């Protein structure tokens, strides 16, 4: 599994910033996910989807007021894919994103008590997250997933660099100094080196979102999941973020983002449209990201 992670597509992109930082990890005991969780029985290694969801149901609320948000979604995200999920409000796209990232869990029983059969299954890099305990799932999020949200969600008591370093410190592969160095390198990549020591709440909205993206990249995640990453930004900053995503996608980073922005959605090589809790269409476009964005 570590080998898979090492082979992760973002290796090339991260080479320059991570080489120095992660080269020292051999000295530390790397905390990895337990392989005791059941593994997706399909493919293995490079060919295995990075995320796979089967018959995913999600109810929100309880009893008579419960809303059936996801109605048995099947989806598979391959390595290096650059995916956008679109759909009207309430179609279940954000709910699906949170479930794919292990931030939420699928519903096991319908509000009237019937067990959903077959049970909803979500695999991250081959590991069945529906069988994981809270701590194991948290570790999976830490190691495999990078989240970016609409409302930046930085810890305002911490500096930009500390915000970026926190996931690395949680993972425990780097010493604090090394994690901070790598955090500054990531910020530098997004033009925020001079803001590294500034408190998060003293950054502009666009800067905060770029810090959030840097934080999402901190542990070289297998996939970045973004929920309306430009939804709270002006046009200029939204374009910057879109360019960052394009750049990461071109570098081989697996990215899945939910958006209402048609222009942003069109940048992805694969577009999934959701309607009423189900996938209505799933279109993969030929051509490179740069070609697509040029055409746009």
């Amino acid at each position, binding site marked *: 599994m570590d080998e898979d992670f090492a082979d992760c597509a973002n290796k090339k992109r991260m080479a320059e910033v991570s080489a120095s930082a992660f080269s020292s990890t051999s000295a530390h005991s790397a905390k990895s996910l337990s392989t005791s969780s059941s593994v997706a029985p399909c493919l293995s290694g490079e060919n295995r989807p990075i995320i796979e969801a089967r018959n995913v149901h999600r109810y929100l609320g309880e009893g008579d007021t419960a809303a059936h948000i996801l109605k048995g979604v099947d989806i598979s995200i391959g390595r290096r894919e650059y995916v956008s999920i679109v759909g009207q409000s309430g179609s279940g796209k*954000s*709910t699906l994103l*949170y479930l794919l*990232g292990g*931030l*939420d869990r699928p519903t096991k029983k319908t509000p009237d008590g019937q067990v959903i059969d077959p049970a909803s299954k979500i695999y991250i890099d081959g590991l069945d997250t529906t069988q994981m305990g*809270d*701590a194991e*799932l*948290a*570790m999976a*999020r*830490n*190691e495999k997933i*990078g*989240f970016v*949200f609409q*409302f930046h*969600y*930085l*810890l*305002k*008591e*911490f500096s930009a660099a500390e915000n970026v370093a*926190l*996931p690395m*410190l*949680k*993972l*425990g592969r780097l010493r*604090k100094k090394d994690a901070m160095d790598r955090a500054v390198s990531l910020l530098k990549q997004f033009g925020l080196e001079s803001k590294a020591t500034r408190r998060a709440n003293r950054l502009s909205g666009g800067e905060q979102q770029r810090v959030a993206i840097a*934080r*999402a990249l*901190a542990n070289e995640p297998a996939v970045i999941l973004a*929920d309306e990453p430009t939804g709270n930004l002006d046009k200029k900053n939204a374009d910057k973020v879109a360019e960052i995503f394009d750049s990461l996608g071109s570098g081989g980073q697996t990215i899945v983002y939910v958006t209402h922005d048609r222009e942003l959605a069109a940048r992805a090589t694969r577009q999934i449209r959701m309607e009423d809790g189900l996938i209505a269409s799933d279109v993969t476009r030929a051509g490179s990201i740069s070609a697509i964005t040029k055409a746009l």
Partner: protein
Amino acid sequence: MNAFIATRYLLTHMRQTLICIAGVVISVMMFITMLSMMQGFTDKFIIETVESSGHITIHDEPRETRSKILERVVNTPDAVLSLEGNKPRDQVKKIKNPTGLLATILRMPGVVDAAPVVNGDATITYGTKTYPLQIIGCEPRRQTAVTTIGEKIVDGSFDRLKTSANGIVIGRGVALTLGVQLDDSITLTSSTGGVLFAKIVGIFDTGVTPVDYGRGYMMLSSAQTLLDRKNIINEIVIRTDDYNQAELIASRIEAICGYKTEGWKEANANFLKIFAVQTVITYIITGALMIVAAFGVLNILIMAVLERVNDIAILKSFGYSRGDITHIYLFQGFVIAVFGSIAGLISAKLAVEGLRRLPIKMEGLVRAEGLLMSEHLSSYVMACAMVTVIVLIASVYPARRAAKFDPVEVIRGAH
């Protein structure tokens, strides 16, 4: 890592942190100070009473353990027993063969010295003033060996009892009440009608009101004459090398001689019970203060949790588990408890020393020129341990509440 986040939260919300710590400091300080005050009073009373009265006293009567005659004959528990015209024998109460008993006692391990005593009630008269007094007839050398009364003389000398005919040493309280001074002559009248003209050869001041206002020491022979108890010894006072062992040694002596033998704890049981109740009340009051401080911590931590739901959500999104979130808030409680305890200990020490120096005259069961403060390491340790446990318990609820937040609900804007 969790400690890093928790510490940052505490440091960036310094005002809230200091309020929490202040609550803990006050409760720790009050706990130690009040306990020190109570303990000081208790220690003074016990030490002075025990040291001036002896560790063990053998009385001239058997302990009432044997059952009554009728109960021995009819041992039916439900029977109603009545004996008419019962009259106890008219016998002189005394300790038989006191010399032999003294020799036996002095050979016992743990016994430092023993003094024979005769005591009884008398009235002291000076001019038109009279005052009731417990007369203790003793041998001055032995009495000063078993008690500290010789060291408590503020005027005259205890040894003058040996050289002055019918000399008496009285307490400071008696002297003040009667208005007598050293070398004044007084009249003593016993309950059996004996009258003795005596001279005041010493005045003692133990600081314990019942002793200073209730006792007078005379030579054994003079007291026997006054009380009409020629050659009678009705008490033996014993000093041990460790007063904490007094009860154990007393029970051994009682087993040998058959006379009721009381250690100082049994002799002062009523006072000790009152002190125990006072101590419990002190614990309750100061414990309540700690609980109030803990509620302050609870309240502020809950506010902190509610203010940081977004932080909790984002921490969870990049890998922090419920356990991690719990640890972050428990650690904050722990830091508040530790810093509060340390500052509380320092404040308590300063308060104790400050109160000790206050010139407040005490005149009650115990007399002193200032507040009696007694420090025990156990009070300091107990205060720290109690406040840490209470504050940690108070931190559990906000910590668990923080851990339970569903990050998705927070991100959706439900909180």
